């Protein structure tokens, strides 16, 4: 087994029947191994000018007349390649439900209140040490239609565009100790030994006193970075 296959073992399978939507949406034929043809392909590097002033503060970026309702938190961490080298200038985009477990998405029908002061979307570029930091509201759990009485654990969606083509990642960050982990097929789709990689660490030492509790979520992208510095 080469190291690439070892790494791949942290990934969920394409077909995971307990997550019902995978049944008709996952490929049935083996994927083609084409790494040799695409290993040198870069992804676009986004400029700081693309990012708005409050894009990384979800407690402010949709504020109309009040602060959003819910527990204010700080979520921060580092984006690295698989050798632990920090990746700078990586576009990190996030989205999440509000404190009541309601997404603002138009197709969402869960009977929980929207918050007029909260959108639930944010983005930023990592700094020279590969770091990102968001302020947001702790998302609530919400029910979904996968099976009877199915509920998603609290989570924040992350989209990450790194330097190399194989650095593209979309994932979900969970919170420590969530009692819904054992009932959630999306979380359970990840091999058991790798599930902790999706759970943020509570960081008392990173809290903002009198303001917000802090969570650390580090992200490791597939493959080596050719261009840690521009």
């Amino acid at each position, binding site marked *: 087994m080469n190291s690439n296959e070892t790494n791949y073992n942290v990934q969920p399978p394409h077909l995971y029947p307990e997550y019902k939507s995978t049944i008709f949406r996952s490929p049935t034929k083996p994927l083609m191994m084409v790494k040799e043809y695409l290993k040198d392909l870069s992804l*676009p590097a986004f400029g700081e000018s693309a990012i708005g002033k409050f894009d990384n503060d979800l407690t402010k970026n949709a504020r109309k007349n009040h602060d959003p309702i819910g527990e204010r938190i700080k979520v921060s961490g580092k984006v690295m390649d698989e050798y632990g080298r920090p990746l700078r200038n990586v576009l990190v985009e996030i989205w999440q439900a509000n404190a009541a477990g309601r997404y603002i*998405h138009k197709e969402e029908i869960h009977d929980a209140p929207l918050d007029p002061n909260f959108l639930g979307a944010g983005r930023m570029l990592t700094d020279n040490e590969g770091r990102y930091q968001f302020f947001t509201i702790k998302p609530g759990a919400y029910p979904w239609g996968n099976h009877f009485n199915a509920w998603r654990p609290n989570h924040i969606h992350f989209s990450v565009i790194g330097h190399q083509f194989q650095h593209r990642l979309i994932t979900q960050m969970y919170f420590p100790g969530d009692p819904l982990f054992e009932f959630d097929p999306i979380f359970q789709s990840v091999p058991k030994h790798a599930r902790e990689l*999706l759970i943020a660490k509570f960081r008392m030492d990173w809290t903002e006193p009198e303001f917000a509790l802090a969570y650390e979520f580090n992200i490791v992208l597939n493959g080596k970075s050719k261009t840690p510095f521009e």
Partner: protein
Amino acid sequence: MMDSNKLQLTPSQTVGPFFAYSLTAEQYGYNYNSIINGSLINDDTEGEQIYITGNVFDGNGNTIMDAMIELWQADAHGNYITRYPTAHNTFKGFGRLGTGTDAAHRFTFKTIKPGAVNGQSPHINVILFMRGSLHQLYTRIYFSDEINDTDALFNSVDAERRQTLIAQRKEVNGNTEYHFNIYMQGENETVFFHL
């Protein structure tokens, strides 16, 4: 053997059904600007202007209305322009659309025909996400009016499945469209890549 110098990768999770207000907000009419959209060019970008359009189909033959597609391509000279957005060049080369705003769940990207890169046939890289997909899928768009059988990646695909990578050129209302459907399963299942 496990390479002990390597960190464990962050596992992938599904994009889910509710990505639009963050990742494709302008397309879906949310009050949040988009850095990335369905146009890979500006009007003065050099090259032959084209549209890439199609559907994503599930294993039952139904169109998928909550997929997200990203395209990444070279410019008309076959160069990848990695600075986005660029000050001196209006070409972006990277685009993103959801399939939830068109009544027929089509995606339609506006771009230019890419030039050939390092002896490869002209092509566009595709990254595909959707509810029900736990890990992104990669594929490539080649063009029906180009010579593709000299392309090493294209040739490495089983001969009977190569046609799933070819977009069909059509002239529609004075525009050049390339039609490229993505089939998750079935007889015409698209060839997907592992990186």
